């Protein structure tokens, strides 16, 4: 018995339409001790990203003309359905840590902080698909909270293809269904793609459709994040008597 991912009336398992993203909620500046932080929810996926720096280099060598971005991705033991005793240091976590680093390198203005280190620590406390996307979105917000200058927002969204339909923002069940999973990181102002990955296989005819779905999803996320950040900045300005 195969699962139906899209009902006859066009609804997905969680009631969304194929092009709809999940509900997003975020809050910045959770931890006064850190330079910046953000709690981010994308549907049932919940992540916390903490940023420290720019500060003195503790890991590896400092670079002469620029900052080093140091990322770590980890998951809480109770984050997934199956309990994971070791949440960091495993292959998947290392891979996503590197992915975060490479993607953020393309937007952070690292030349402004030579010989320093910027730490970005992502911790997934509940996982329901799209954890790397949620972490990238949260990382952008946490870096902004830390006052680190960025060339652009990084918004990330994954898309897939099931039951002959491109689907936007996959949850865990849809992700594990065996179809393609295409997470992207999108820079809204330039319209460029900063990161793109794909697993499973898909024919070239469908690929462009899926990519476009992911980009549309990222644009939807961007408008939500942009609005939220603007509101917060207005509030901060008001509390400092600037507006």
């Amino acid at each position, binding site marked *: 018995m195969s699962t139906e991912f899209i009902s006859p009336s066009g609804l997905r398992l969680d009631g969304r339409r194929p092009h709809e993203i999940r509900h997003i*909620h975020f809050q910045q500046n959770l931890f006064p001790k850190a330079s910046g932080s953000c709690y981010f929810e994308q549907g049932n996926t919940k992540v916390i990203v903490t940023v420290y720096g720019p500060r003195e280099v503790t890991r590896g060598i400092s670079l002469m003309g620029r900052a080093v971005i140091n990322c770590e991705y980890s998951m809480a033991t109770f984050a997934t359905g199956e309990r994971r005793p070791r949440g960091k240091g495993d292959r998947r976590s290392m891979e996503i840590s590197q992915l975060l680093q490479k993607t953020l390198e393309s937007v952070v203005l690292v030349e402004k902080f030579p010989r320093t280190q910027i730490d970005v*620590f992502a911790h997934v406390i509940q996982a329901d698909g799209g954890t790397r996307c949620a972490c990238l979105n949260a990382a952008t917000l946490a870096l902004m909270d830390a006052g680190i200058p960025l060339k652009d927002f990084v918004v990330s969204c994954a898309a897939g293809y099931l039951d002959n339909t491109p689907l936007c923002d996959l949850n865990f069940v849809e992700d594990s269904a065996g179809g393609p999973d295409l997470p992207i990181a999108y820079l809204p102002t330039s319209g460029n793609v900063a990161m793109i990955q794909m697993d499973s296989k898909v024919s070239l005819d469908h690929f462009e459709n899926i990519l476009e779905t992911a980009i549309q999803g990222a644009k939807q996320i961007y408008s939500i994040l942009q609005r939220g950040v603007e509101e917060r900045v207005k509030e901060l300005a008001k509390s400092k008597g600037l507006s």
Partner: protein
Amino acid sequence: TFKKKMIKLSNDEKSFIKQSIKHNLREDGRERLSYRSFSVELGTFAQTNGSARVTLADTDVIVGIKAEVGKVHPNFPDEGIIQLEVECSTSVSASFEGRGGEEMASNLKRMLSLLLSRHGSPLYQQLCIIPNQLCWILHIDCLIVQSQGNLLDCLSFAIRAALQHTTLPKVNATELLPEEEDVQVGEETFMDMNTQYELELEGDGDPESVMHLDISQFPIVISFGISEGSSIYVDATLREEACTGARLSIAINEAAHVCSIEKFGTSIRPDMVVSCLTFAKSIAKEKLDRLNEAVSREQKKQRELHMVPVFS
């Protein structure tokens, strides 16, 4: 010791803090035996059997409990197994990257296990499914999100709240004879080296047919700092912890039974221990009442609301 690495204080600051404790007017204005305010959130994580988040001023911890069925421990054949793990998130400090937080986490795990595990208590016995064979294994996973002192107490509140929130399905386990037929739909087979068991959910997976845990005897921890040999105080902040030589943690339950005592640091006079025990009784009663009240308020809210964002 491990906590002193996190805070650097000058001698004058240390002396000021010690004097403030002695004069019953601490840095944040509290009296010696007064706690900061705490809040409890339940059921924040849907993937767990039970979960809770407790914040004690700026100290913030999350506890998630997951249950699985397994073989009993040979030394305790008619009890379940409770395993405690602690993890320090990188949001506490940048130095907890990679394996940096492991030392502090394993220290906390060891202390909590010593204070809270009580073989023979109703909770452990309730977790047994078939004596000598099968039992529930509860994995209590603690995540420290922020630390501003007094992690032991905060963790114990969160563990107790999470246990109160935990529900386990009622199972009937029957031993399968070797000639048993294929397993029917709706039942799970648990395989052991020698014996095969068939696990059946009572009530056919009806959400109302669940087992709540008996935490009537489960203790909470009240930690005391003993400054300058004679000033006893509770709920230390990070800075106070860095100046205090001796600490005494007492695990005490609703029946005012002292479940266990752990002492850390420098030596103390025996009458200090007796004083702490006396204070612990009244403080624990008040904290347990407030904790129970917060938990039942949350449970009522859970029944009305569906999903609440964790940090809001």
